[in-house]
């Protein structure tokens, strides 16, 4: 019987005391093994040192860190325009009515179990997601040339697609727009791709640097992967026109550049699901191949449920099937199979025409509220005579506005006015309400006139 030793007594015991205690306990143990077999190596656990002692604290995530700072602020007038999560006019998060209904239906269905999903997720969800983004009559779907796998929201879909590309595609470089969502470079780098950028945003016009975009994509090596924001570019809100998309498509096809679409805002940008999918559908109609990462975080308000899908459009059905089998090999050692709850809600809504219609109405209401906030902010700045051209606020689209404020001005607004945004001047319009627009307008006015 092994003698009992008291474990380190108080929380104030130093790590040295702990090491000493551990040493004492070990030496006093009536071991069944000869003591000479024990190796007193310098790296031995006797010292109680962790092999991870050298790990340093990582910096806060620049986007999620904004909310952390906001939460710490005691000011009653504080405003969180950081992370892109929709808020109501009352500043509250929103769970869509259709989502509540779908949840109730699932709850009441006693036959539902919580078993493992297949590696690729819910088949119905996958099918309906493909239809949603490509259009139910899409030739790619009709010809079984699309494989769709359920993933953890947009992030997870991007990561799985990128890992597949790193293993199976001949080109390991992905071109991402300048700027882009902060997490994009890390997703692709950790997946094993190397990341380059192409010009996208023009700070002088606060619009698209179309010239630069065409030049940079035009000089990319043949076959390179190109990340495209399907609509409502994050963080700038600047989207190509349809004509510009057509030019981009032609250029990319002529250089065999592989499109990888990130679709995080379908329905949220214009308020219309089909309109927001136009860019992607162009690239499918021409018979070529592409990757699409879909997220239901914003357009169904399912943020924390992590619901998304990765679709790969191939030129032939048997190829799509092989691709799917390889996607499973990426997924299995990452999380085995995707979470069931959120995708069940989505499938319930998408397959029921009444729920689907209700959803489109709620979606349009969210998009309309954001468009109205844009207009109100623009009007408020004009009314104050704030120097500068602020028309980009109403020209940009989607959840975010790239204000054009510099980091000093942003810092001023946070310090003096308790308004929180990412340091690149990106504000989430979803975080605004009619009540708070004046406060923001005043703050921008102050920042622009007092800090340059």
């Amino acid at each position, binding site marked *: 019987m*092994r003698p009992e030793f008291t474990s*380190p007594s108080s929380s104030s015991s130093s*790590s040295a005391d702990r090491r000493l205690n*551990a040493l004492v*306990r*070990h030496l006093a143990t009536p071991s*069944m*093994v000869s003591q000479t*077999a*024990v190796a007193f*190596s310098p790296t*031995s*656990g006797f010292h*109680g040192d*962790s*092999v*991870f*002692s050298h*790990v340093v*604290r*990582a910096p806060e*995530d620049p986007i*999620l860190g904004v909310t952390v700072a906001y939460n710490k602020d005691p000011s009653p007038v504080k405003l969180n325009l950081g992370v892109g*999560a929709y808020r109501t006019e009352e500043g509250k*998060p929103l*769970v869509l009515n259709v989502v509540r209904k779908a*949840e109730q239906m699932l*709850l009441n269905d006693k036959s539902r*179990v*919580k078993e*493992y999903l297949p590696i690729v997720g819910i088949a119905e969800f996958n099918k309906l997601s493909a239809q949603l983004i490509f259009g139910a009559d899409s030739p790619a779907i009709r010809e079984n040339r699309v494989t769709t796998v359920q993933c*953890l*929201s947009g*992030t997870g879909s991007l*990561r799985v697609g990128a890992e597949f590309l790193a293993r199976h595609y001949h080109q390991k470089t992905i071109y991402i727009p300048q700027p882009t969502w902060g*997490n994009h470079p*890390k997703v692709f780098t950790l*997946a094993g791709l190397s990341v380059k950028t192409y010009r996208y945003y023009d700070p002088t016009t606060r619009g698209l640097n179309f010239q630069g975009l065409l030049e940079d994509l035009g000089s990319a090596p043949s076959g390179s992967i190109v990340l495209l924001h399907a609509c409502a570019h994050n963080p700038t809100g600047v989207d190509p026109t349809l004509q510009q998309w057509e030019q981009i498509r032609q250029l990319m*096809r*002529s250089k065999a550049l592989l499109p990888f679409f990130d679709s995080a805002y379908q329905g949220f940008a214009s308020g219309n699901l089909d309109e927001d999918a136009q860019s992607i559908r162009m690239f499918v109609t*021409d*018979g*070529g191949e592409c990757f699409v990462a879909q997220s239901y975080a914003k357009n169904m308000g*399912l*943020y*924390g449920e*992590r619901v998304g899908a990765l679709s790969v459009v*191939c*030129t032939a059905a048997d*190829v799509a099937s*092989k*691709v799917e089998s*390889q996607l*499973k090999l990426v997924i*299995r*050692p*990452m999380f*085995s199979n995707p979470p*069931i709850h*959120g995708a069940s809600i989505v499938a319930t809504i998408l397959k029921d025409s009444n729920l689907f219609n209700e959803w489109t109405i709620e979606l349009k209401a969210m998009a309309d509220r954001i468009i109205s906030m844009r207009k109100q902010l623009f009007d408020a700045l004009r009314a104050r005579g704030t120097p500068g051209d602020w028309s980009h606020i109403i020209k940009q689209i989607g959840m975010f506005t790239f204000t054009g404020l510099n980091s000093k001005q942003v810092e001023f607004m946070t310090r003096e006015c308790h308004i929180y945004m990412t340091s690149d001047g990106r504000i989430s319009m979803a975080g605004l309400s009619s009540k708070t627009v004046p406060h923001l307008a005043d703050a921008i006015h102050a920042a622009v006139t007092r800090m340059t």
Partner: protein
Amino acid sequence: MAIRRAMSGRIMDRTAVVGARYMSSWWRSVQPAPKDPILGVTEAFLADQSPDKVNVGVGAYRDDNGKPVVLECVREAERRIAGNLNMEYLPMGGSVKMVEETLKLAYGENSELIKEKRIAAVQALSGTGACRLFADFQKRFCPDSQIYIPVPTWANHHNIWRDAQVPQKTYHYYHPESKGLDFAAMIDDIKNAPNGSFFLLHACAHNPTGVDPSEEQWREISHHIKAKGHFAFFDMAYQGFASGDPEKDAKAIRIFLEDGHHIGISQSYAKNMGLYGQRVGCLSVLCEDEKQAVAVKSQLQQLARPMYSNPPVHGALIVSTILSDPDLKKQWLKEVKVMADRIIGMRTALRGNLEKLGSPLSWQHITNQIGMFCYSGLTPEQVDRLTNEFHIYMTRNGRISMAGVTTGNVKYLANAIHEVTK
């Protein structure tokens, strides 16, 4: 400008040709991947039309009617949370509440280590996700290290550390002749591994063999791992499910903690709360002090962010609702014991039936082994006969999921096993 227009005109003319050129896929050379050995068994089972078919393949619990089970405590928790909260993003590290409760299960309800905030912990995508996060973390911060994996182990362990690009070695574990633990060889492997190697240990209810070290054997394993300065990483996917008592099932971990190891743990609620498809789990790493725990946690989050940003909320809410309510927690513990007891009962019944049939072989290991799986000792050829002649489905390594055995099919199963082994 004119040049560009002319060029784009030429590109437009070429569109039809360009489109035709793209009839050849970039993915033509992609090979079809082999089917997953475990999940493929269920697929085959589902396709079988025989009324006698038995699925003892995948490790998902079934009741005595062979039906999947949603625990009552889970149903109640879901009722409470439905329509209640929003679905906002969790922090990158997941639900703080869920993680807190989960650590208590592994480290002890009143653990000093928890009070001292020495544990870096994040919510993870069930056991798979926790192991993968740890493997990625190991690769990033101990890039020259390798992982020692027991033979045999859950097949996906190899995939996980491979995809994390951590070199793997194996250590002796299962002893086929005795259908028990190859203890001496295991200790030898621990002693012979280079100092500071990482060892993957199954905390309880080893998958696929069901063979666990005894308490004395765990103490020796701890001693030798410590002597070599190895890192002990525990995969605990069956806490509560092995003996019916979560505290008892955490014994190996507690021994290591007493001995002062800085361990890592992957915990899963897939089986013990029946939350399989919700993907709820936790990865924890015990550190020297609070400061280091903060640093390690932040780095784990840096690995999670480019993989899935933040973990799913629903399953975590179920877990924290149950574990933070004393009555629901009590109910959970009762339901876990029922599941574990049913399995222990089926082990007794299967062994009893085989012995009654006058089998020439020893079937002691069926009741010696613990947890969801029984490593029957059947050869692949015998397994194939079971499938082809008797419509009994299991993985070809002879692993039987005892959760698939019922009072309704145990005789049939015993008969079939006897037929192919007599």
